[in-house]
């Protein structure tokens, strides 16, 4: 692999960007060598290091992945008053006290299942006799980020295995241990946590992220697989996927759309996270060779061409961490939102001025391409700090929408129209 000093890397970067991006993107590139008095240029990073691309300057040294507080916020400490939704919409706390609340799935009988990434639990928000309560239905799991529900069965995706609990809503008070249905998965920590969902083809879709920021890898990574609901018949459905933590299917033509997070340390402004559309099984979306459809990676992209990969249908902003997404198929929101995609952007860390930390709504053209993207739920970002971070969105049967927040360990509910008093 080619190695070079950070000074020559800056030159290469500028060269690679020339002609491909706006002048403002170029202007943001690190142009000067380390400040006078700094230590001599360090040796090149080892292959696969998550720091590859990081410039040696003060601004970059301020950036690090942001970890949420481990303890969930008390209901009266949630940032509800700071959250903003468009006129006519209302937001309320649906449930709280669930440390690191992440992916959401809804049971047939109204239970909402909530996965977690940094703790070992799956929660159930139970609605019974007009009362809502939170139960831990599984613990001792390893990064159980993904949850999906179909025909009475809850599916749970841990870092390297998928398991299920049958008839979960009948056994909420005393659930059995989950039964493993699929474990032919790598064990890498980097991008190892999983979002899962069940497609209109009744198959379970399971992503396997690339095992690092910007790395070459074997055939078992960088993809979305699909399999039967008993874990059999697994096949690769999409390739060139860096780290997808959200997908759903267009209700009109059943095409799968997925979010994918772009690499770190390329610059403040690119690459943008992607919204992709799969039109046929086996499509390659480019990572780690081509990002956002038009950036050949400065390091791994030599000899590659973006034309050889499927370009995203939408760009979600640089480092914004576009995660959970759902098409709006309900009838409570105004008609303009029908079949639009709601996408939770967890928010950036690899950026001086944080971006994302919101839920946006993406409207599509008739041909399935992106028409517009606008903010929907904002207010999680205050003075360049997070007061909450949205992870996933989900529709309740009445057409209202839930949003999970792993920073506070809470789930909010967004309704449209005259606020109704929520059942307690």
């Amino acid at each position, binding site marked *: 692999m080619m190695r070079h000093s950070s000074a020559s890397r800056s030159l290469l970067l500028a060269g690679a960007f020339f002609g491909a991006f706006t002048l403002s993107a170029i202007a943001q590139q690190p142009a000067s060598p380390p400040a006078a008095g700094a230590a001599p240029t360090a040796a*090149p*990073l080892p292959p696969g*290091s998550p720091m590859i691309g990081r410039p040696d300057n003060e601004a970059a*040294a301020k950036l*690090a*992945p942001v*970890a949420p507080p481990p*303890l969930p916020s008390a209901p009266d400490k949630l940032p509800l008053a700071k959250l903003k939704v468009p006129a006519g919409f209302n937001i309320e706390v649906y449930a709280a006290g669930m440390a690191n609340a992440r992916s959401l799935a809804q049971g047939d009988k109204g239970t909402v299942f909530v996965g977690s990434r940094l703790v070992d639990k799956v929660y159930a928000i139970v609605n019974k006799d007009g009362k809502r309560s939170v139960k831990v239905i599984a613990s001792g799991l390893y990064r159980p980020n993904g949850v999906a529900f179909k025909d009475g069965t809850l599916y749970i995706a841990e870092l390297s295995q998928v398991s299920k609990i049958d008839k979960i809503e009948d056994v909420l008070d005393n659930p059995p241990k989950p039964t493993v249905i699929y474990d032919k998965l790598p064990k890498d920590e*980097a*991008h190892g946590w999983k979002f899962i969902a069940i497609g209109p083809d009744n198959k379970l879709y399971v992503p396997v992220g690339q095992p690092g920021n910007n790395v070459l890898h074997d055939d078992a990574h960088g993809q979305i697989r699909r399999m039967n609901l008993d874990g059999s018949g697994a096949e690769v459905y999409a390739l060139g996927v860096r780290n997808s933590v959200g997908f759903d299917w267009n209700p009109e033509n059943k095409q799968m759309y997925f979010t994918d997070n772009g690499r770190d340390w390329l610059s403040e402004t690119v690459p943008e996270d992607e919204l992709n559309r799969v039109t046929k099984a086996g499509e390659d979306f480019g990572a780690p060779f081509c990002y956002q459809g038009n950036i050949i990676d400065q390091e791994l992209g030599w000899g590659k061409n973006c034309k050889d990969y499927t370009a995203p249908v939408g760009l979600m902003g640089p480092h914004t961490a576009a995660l959970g997404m759902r098409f709006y198929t309900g009838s409570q929101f105004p008609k303009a939102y029908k079949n639009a995609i709601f996408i939770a952007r967890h928010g950036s860390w690899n950026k001086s001025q944080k971006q994302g930390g919101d839920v946006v709504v993406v409207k599509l053209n008739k041909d399935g391409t992106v028409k517009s993207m606008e903010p929907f739920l904002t207010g999680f970002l205050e003075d360049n700090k997070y007061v909450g971070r949205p992870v996933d969105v989900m529709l309740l049967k009445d057409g209202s929408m839930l949003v999970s927040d792993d920073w506070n360990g809470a789930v909010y509910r967004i309704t449209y129209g005259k606020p109704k008093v929520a059942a307690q």
Partner: protein
Amino acid sequence: MRKLAITVALASLSFSASAETIQERAAPCLACHGERGSSETENTPSLGGQQAPYALIQLFMFREKLRTFEPMNEMAKPLTDDDLRAFSDFIASLPKPAAPKDAGDAARMARGEGLAKQNRCNTCHNTDYSGKDNVPRIANQREDYLAKTLAEYKDNSRHGYDATMADVMGAIPKEQIADLAYYVAHVR
């Protein structure tokens, strides 16, 4: 000796009354972690000057058994959320560990410094390795504890709160751990 200290510590923690001051309640912690937060116990970290958010995460992980070390799992078991906050704030208020009196072997220091710079440890751990927020202070931490921890992140026997250190250590050969730990323990 160490076993005895832990047993004593456990016994005193479980009888602690809420009326006690945090200093009194923390006495069993400091029996192993050092009277003023600078540990003289093998493989046991100094706590002084630790970032409070990091300390809170670790205490939470011990209580929830997300990080496994039996004496600490036992110590943390009865703690409430408010206890975890109180202990982590207290830990942060202890004086940071001092650099060792000897400057360290020059050749090893140079190798370690080169590795720390090469791997951009200063990105998250701060330019003086004092840490920030959820990222721990590592400057002048015990060398044996640093080496043990890096090795455990490398083989993933210690699960981080998030994936960052496993990711970083994936790219660092295990032969380099000793020099990295030596340098960070001696850094001035």
